[in-house]
């Protein structure tokens, strides 16, 4: 393994010239960017531009065909990669929440730390309850996912991911399946998280939110990063025609 010395001054996630294809269809055509510890990155762009695929590559849910992805100096594009070790460091939240339907909210959160990290149950339970409070879901410990609204399920899913105490959080269009009223409660949760200094990589269609929380915005189209920059520059002074066209449609 190529686990070189990594210290916190270096990028926590470093993506270099990543290529990925499904059969003949190349969805990522050489994407590169770095994420520093504590940064919040938003990836935006039209559907099918490879945004979700890109962040799924970061925790090795999808493999890449070329280039390099390093998480804390650990190369992800490596046949000998210990995927489980990588995924302990990288949390992920999905569009469809994907809570385990046969477990209560609290059990959903406690399951992985107990079974995967082998932490003592009492300690995990304490942390899980604190996390539920943090995502403003106290009192719903014993509810099953089927009894919760989409926004509530998504907040439990965020807490479940945080219970593993990851260093990086990936958010894959986490508000795309929600009602407009519940979008806000999930965004507030993510904002709290960003304020706490968690490194976050988000794929999102919420432009207002991206503008508010992101340190850096990347606009992808057709498998490449077309334009990037801090939110103010990006939204107010977009240079590329494709970015302008996209922002024109969406804003």
């Amino acid at each position, binding site marked *: 393994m190529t686990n070189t010395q990594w210290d916190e001054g270096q990028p926590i996630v470093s993506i270099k010239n990543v290529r990925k294809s499904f059969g003949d269809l190349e969805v990522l055509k050489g994407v590169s960017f770095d994420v520093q510890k504590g940064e919040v990155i938003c990836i935006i762009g039209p559907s099918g531009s490879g945004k979700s695929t890109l962040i799924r590559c970061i*925790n090795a*849910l999808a493999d890449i065909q070329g280039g390099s992805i390093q998480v804390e100096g650990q190369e992800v594009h490596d046949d000998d990669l210990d*995927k*489980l*070790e990588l*995924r*302990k460091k*990288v*949390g*992920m939240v*999905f569009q*469809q929440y*994907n*809570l*385990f*339907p*046969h477990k209560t909210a609290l059990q959903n959160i406690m*399951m*992985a730390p107990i*079974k*995967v990290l082998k932490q003592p149950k009492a300690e995990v339970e304490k942390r899980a309850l604190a996390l539920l409070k943090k995502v403003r879901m106290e009192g719903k410990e014993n509810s099953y996912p089927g009894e919760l609204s989409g926004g509530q399920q998504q907040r439990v*899913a965020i807490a*479940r*991911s945080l219970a*593993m105490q990851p260093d990086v959080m990936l958010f894959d269009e986490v508000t795309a399946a929600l009602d407009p009223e519940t979008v806000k409660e999930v965004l507030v949760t993510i904002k709290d998280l960003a304020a706490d200094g968690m490194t976050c990589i988000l794929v999102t269609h919420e432009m207002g939110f991206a503008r508010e929380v992101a340190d850096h915005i990347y606009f992808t189209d057709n498998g490449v990063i077309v334009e990037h920059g801090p939110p103010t520059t990006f939204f107010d002074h977009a240079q590329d025609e494709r970015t302008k066209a996209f922002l024109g449609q969406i804003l």
Partner: protein
Amino acid sequence: MSVLQKHGSLVSQKTDLPVLKAVKTRPMDDLGLSRWISRMPLWVIFAFSAVILLWPGLASAQTAYSLEKVWGILLKWMPLLVFKGFVLNIVISFFTMLIGTVAGVFLGLGQVSQVYPVRIMSWIIVQVFRNSPWLVLLFIVMLSFPFEISFGGTHFTVPGWFKAVIGLALPVMANIAEIVRGAIRSVPTGQWEAAESLAFSRSQIMWQIILPQCIKRMIPPWMNWYAIMTMATPLVSLLGVSELVTLSRQAMEAEGNNPSLLVPFYGFALVIFFAYCYPIARLTLLLEKRFTIKL
């Protein structure tokens, strides 16, 4: 006419164009037997009994046996038929289901294995045993299995009924493997991804996250297979296992092989099997209904 109206009337309108014909597809149903049995009204069992009851009377014109006499004979044998015969059918069915289920679960898991040789081997085994005639499998096991197994110096005699269990368990195993495979496949991929992103290992995901979600879905088809297999247990009478049908035949022989005994004796066997499987079929459909609403 708007497009919508046109489309709406497509189904009912007659047309010569084959592409436009409404396709009638029946969804793949793994509960066929249970549906069929449980649709029968309960009076069927009484109607059955009545036919058996009256048959000797109707047929007695050409025989010397009266209704009372036939019924006396049947009543005399009934305890033996039920407590020696049918009980063995049930014992066989329990053990068959036990072995078939355990083996079927592992075979089903083998079918979704990431290891190609395991997957292909499991698939072949399932296809072979699902599509073989049960009686042939029974004969093969019955005649090729040893009478005795020595284990650490001691010899165990393998009773005929247990060999029958093995023979019946093979097709049951293959069909349960299919149920397991289908149930695993029916769990959304998002569940796998979420579990993977939480650093669960593949076996943890399977046993702690996927399979617990599948169990409800598996119970109705599993019970359906229990009913199918239980009704197939008289097959083993061809191999000399003294279950209900074998004992019925022997009882009739002991009573002089009179033809007027045939319908009452075999009819009695039918009634017992029906009485046993009917509640199972009803329960199967009840559970199926309950679980579908919940999902």
